[in-house]
Structure formats: C-alpha cells, structure tokens
C-alpha cells in the first residue's frame, strides 16, 4: 500500500505545486502589466460585459 500512497502523493504534490506556481506567475505578470501600462495610458477602462466606461485605480 505504501507504493500506492507514494504514487498518489507524488502526482498530487507535483500538480498542486505547479498550479500554485501558475497562479503566482499570472498574478505577478498581471501586476507588471498594470504597473507598466498605468503611466502611459489614460486611467479609463471599458467593461466588455456591461459595455460601460469605468474609472480604474492606478
């Protein structure tokens, strides 16, 4: 049974670590885009779902 537990544990840990790393990478990049785009763009955004224009935080 220890081989079964080892097999499941390895797969689940690797997938969980990779998933967390993906989310962290995406968040870091999204922050970088917001930081870089902020100074050269007007602080106005359209909401595609509502079709409205809203102010966005710098």
């Amino acid at each position, binding site marked *: 049974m220890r081989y079964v537990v080892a*097999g499941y544990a390895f797969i689940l840990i690797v997938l969980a670590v990779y998933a967390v790393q993906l989310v962290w990478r995406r968040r870091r990049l999204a922050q970088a885009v917001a930081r870089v*785009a902020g100074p050269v*763009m007007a602080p106005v955004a359209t909401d595609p779902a509502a079709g409205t224009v809203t102010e966005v935080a710098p």
Partner: protein
Amino acid sequence: MTDNSTTTTVAEAFGPGPAAHPPTTVATNTGVTPSPVQSPRSRMVERTIGILALVGTIATVWLGIWVTPPDKVQGDLVRLVYIHPGVAWVALYLAFGLAAVSSLLYLWPRTRSLFWDRLAAAAVEVGVVFNVCTLVSGSIWGRPTWGVWWAWDARLTSTAVLLVLFLGYLALRRVPAEPEVRARRSAFVALFAAVDIPIIHFSVNWWNTLHQGATVLNPNLSAKIHGSMAWTLLLGFVALTLVFVWMLLVRFRIGVLEDWLGANELDLALAERQSEGTGPLDGSAADRVGAA
C-alpha cells in the same frame, strides 16, 4: 505578424490575446497596445473548470484508495490504475497532441496566428509536468510489480524520449528571437517530437514489453475492467482532463501577458522618456533607449 480574427471564437474560453481583446484602456499616441485584461466571462469559465477539476480529483482519490476493491492479481497496487493512466492520457495525447495540432495550424499559412503558438507553448509546458508524473508514478508502480524502478522497455523508453524532446522545445523557446521566428522554429520541433506519440501508443503491440497493453483502448476495444473500478478509472480520466484544461487556460493567459510586456517594452521606454520631457523622440533618442 499579428493575431487574426479567425481565432477569436476559439480564444473566447482562453480570453483573447492582446490584438483580439476589446480595448480596455485608452492608449495615448505611444503605439502601446491596449493592456490584455481578462474578461469576467473568461474568468468565470476558468474558475468553474478549476472547481470541477478539484472536486473530481478529490473524488477520484477517495474512490481509488478507499472505496474500490483490491485486484485478484495485483492486490492494492491496482489502485494506481485510477491515476497513472490518467496523467499519461493528459501528457501524451491531450497536451502533446494539442501542441502538435496547434503547431501545424501555426505553420499552415491560412491559419497562421501567434494564438496557436501560445497555445502550443502552454500545452507543452503543462504536458511536461504531466509527463514527469507519468514516468515517476509508473516507476513507483513498476518497483513492486516488476522488481525494478526502471527498465529500458519500449513504452518507458519512448515516453522518456518524448519528455526530453519537449524539454528541448521549452529550452528552444527561451532562445531570444522575434516572436514569429520563435513560433516557426518551435512549431517544427513540436511536430518532430510528436512523431513519438504514435510510437509510444503502439509500442506495447509492436514489441515485447514489460508494460501491459491498453486496458480500454486495446486493439479489440474490449474493456478489461468493470464495475466500480471502471467508473473510478473513467472519473480519473475526466478529473485529470479538467485539471489539464484549467492549467492550460492559466498558462495561456501567462503567455498573453508575457507577450504584451515583451511587445510594449520599447514603446513604453520611449513614452517614459517623452513624458520626462527629454526632448523630441528622434532617431538618436530611440538609439539611446535601445542601447540602454
């Protein structure tokens, strides 16, 4: 090369790329493309798939370890069947298969778009993680059944070769180049590597191997697993497929953001210079920024 409109419907689930995305910011006259903000709908789809993947995986582990009966021959070791073939299915067929198809669509002149290149890159990265899981979980299963951690068996060796080939693909993508050049050379490598996929699939039929034949997708298409064991196996495939789709969506998004930052780096540097009041942006100013 820019993304063309033919990919926007496919891209809906992924959240469209920079060029296809509706403008979410009003750019000044700097040449900077609108920032790639993810739409609420795409975020909701991604979140739903993530929750389903998590629930499915937990259910598979619960059924696989505590509910299903042990096997007559393998005993408790059979419980690895609910997860090992699932990760292999994702790595070999879904991820690398998708990478091959996307690469082909990129190379095909009528469908050429960086969308396909990003999709291939995302699929390969996720596929490599699943491929490592396949090899290691297979090795853990092989030790008590075959008596060895590793054998230079046709199935095992061809799977390891595929991992090396796609690691090479990821390394190649890190070589600095224009996006189009990188996309073209990566697509050729992906197609070359994908030749190994049918070899892996048919290796258990073509050669005498330690690895068992297919339990469900065998030449006679007669499933050799039944009842709760079969349902748990199926659930494992579905859950791991959902995990793959969720990871693919997030990784694709990372590619969009990376490309946006890469494409706008120089424009942003020039715009910052302009806003600092260092004078008109003539050729020499641009040279100075480039040299910096």
